[in-house]
């Protein structure tokens, strides 16, 4: 048997429980080859359950260890790893939970997993410059209306239909989570990295609108116009400026784009 055939057979033994490879193995000093092969089989699942659990600590806490192990084992069986780095192994978990029939009546699981995935992704996302208030100090007042902004590349916006973010916060704090619930409207949860800390915040509707506009390349003047449409002309620019200051304080923006000539 060639090495490549042997490796294919050994892999089948681990992934599918196929015993054909046993004929090529010898018994150990004090243990049968069958039991020794099982060391590899057990280690495969246990190791990957750990990987999934380390990436989804709050989901694990929410479900309890036994249910979490069963959920993770189902994912592992359905999604063998295709990446050399285990860092990316659990990234498919939210989609798996969303589509798996067994979890169809528990949409908060997929959304909790999606929130944790977004936090993990923000944690080691590409480094980028961070725009601070001081960087805008030299901007002449007349130019403010024409300036646009680039969002920090670690930032992403989730739109959960459940109270997954509330569940996450309670679990993280070590509290008993409230009952899972469906929201009347999807929330807007922005996840990003500030310095080295991955974090998230729920945006109220006006802030969420402003976030989307900035992402589309809208100028600050355009943002103020839309704030006026959304919440009334009175103080629209002040509301937009207040939100902008908050974003600058927490590192949500990367760059300012000067007004086009």
């Amino acid at each position, binding site marked *: *048997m*060639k*090495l*490549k055939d*042997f*490796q*294919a057979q*050994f*892999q089948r033994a*681990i*992934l599918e429980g196929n015993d054909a490879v046993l004929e*090529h*193995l*010898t018994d*150990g*000093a*004090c*243990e049968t*080859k069958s*039991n*020794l*092969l099982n*060391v*590899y089989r057990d*280690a*495969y699942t246990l*190791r*990957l359950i750990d*990987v999934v659990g380390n990436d989804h600590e709050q989901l694990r806490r929410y479900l309890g260890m036994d249910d979490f192990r069963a959920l993770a084992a189902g994912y592992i069986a359905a999604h*063998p*790893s*295709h*990446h*050399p*780095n*285990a*860092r990316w*192994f659990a990234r498919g978990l939210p989609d798996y939970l969303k589509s798996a029939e067994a979890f169809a009546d528990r949409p908060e699981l997929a959304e909790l997993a999606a929130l944790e995935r977004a936090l993990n992704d*923000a*944690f*080691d*996302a*590409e*480094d*980028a410059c961070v725009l601070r208030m001081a960087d805008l100090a030299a901007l002449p007042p007349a130019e403010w209306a024409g300036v646009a902004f680039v969002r920090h590349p*670690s930032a992403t916006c989730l739109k959960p239909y459940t109270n997954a973010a509330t569940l996450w916060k309670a679990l993280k704090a070590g509290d008993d989570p409230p009952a899972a619930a469906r929201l009347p409207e999807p929330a807007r949860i922005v996840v990003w*990295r500030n310095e*080295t800390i*991955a974090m998230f915040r729920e945006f109220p509707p006006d802030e969420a609108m402003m976030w989307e506009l900035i992402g589309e390349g809208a100028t600050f003047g355009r943002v103020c116009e839309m704030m006026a449409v959304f919440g009334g002309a009175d103080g629209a620019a002040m509301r937009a400026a207040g939100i902008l200051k908050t974003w600058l304080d927490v590192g949500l923006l990367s760059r300012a784009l000067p007004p086009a000539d």
Partner: protein
Amino acid sequence: MSKRAKSQPSTSAKAGDPAHSLITAKPPYLGFGLGLRSQHYTDILEGNPHVDWFEVISENFMVPGGKPLAILDRIAARYPVVMHGVSMSIASTAPFDEDYLDALVKLAERVEPKWISDHLCWTGVHGVNLHDLLPIPYTREALDHVVARVHHVQERLGRALCLENVSTYVQFNRSEMPEWEFISELSKRTGCWLLFDVNNVYVSAFNHGYDPFAFLGGIPADRVIQFHLAGHSDMVNYVIDTHDAPVRAEVWDLYEAALRRFGPVSTMIERDDHIPPLAELLPELEHARGVADAVLGKGGKRKTAAA
């Protein structure tokens, strides 16, 4: 498959060939180190622990950015660092993941490690990664295959690779030579360095019923540049390389014998699970220093370091 892999290094890796530019000088002796673990970041950066160097798991830092790389930059500025990978799959018959090697090269450019190691094993075929260090039959076919792959990696890295013996739980009736002979031949034919994992030798020897000192005696003394020390779990009829407990007495005994055979070799304690506070690991590292001093004398380390 092996024919394809064998063809990979055929255009170079020969002395005199312009493409032959591997750094082959023996890496320096570093003293006594630890595996870098995130639980210890603060204690390392805010304290001044008596640790001579750190080994980092390459894959943990093969990420786009953020805290892991920021911390690694700070560690690498203060300590010698060695990169230790778990996913090279050097013995796999699957085509190399060139993206993985690109990322490894990129990380090495950033970290400037004293050496780069991985394991003599395979981790999957057919596009699947089992994230385990899987055993190979010690056949001439496998040896030719791994030799070709090591040449390829060494060309990509521009330096000699360092390979570690893994713990194994099964053996193959087709093996044509003992593991130590396979490793010895591999090193001879490729110029790769060896990471002698003392615990892994103990684990494999126990499971397969051979003498760990025979393994030790079969490894070329001048190729070993690093020792791993770790704890294992006793399952009565076999032992598992769990890396989750202190080093056991029988492994310390083998370490002593390894020091006698190999002389001063950069030594580190590798804890991967149930990771205790740094303050609990440091006495174990001090114990390793004490064992080395007792075997080699205190001057042995300095003499080699200056060589």
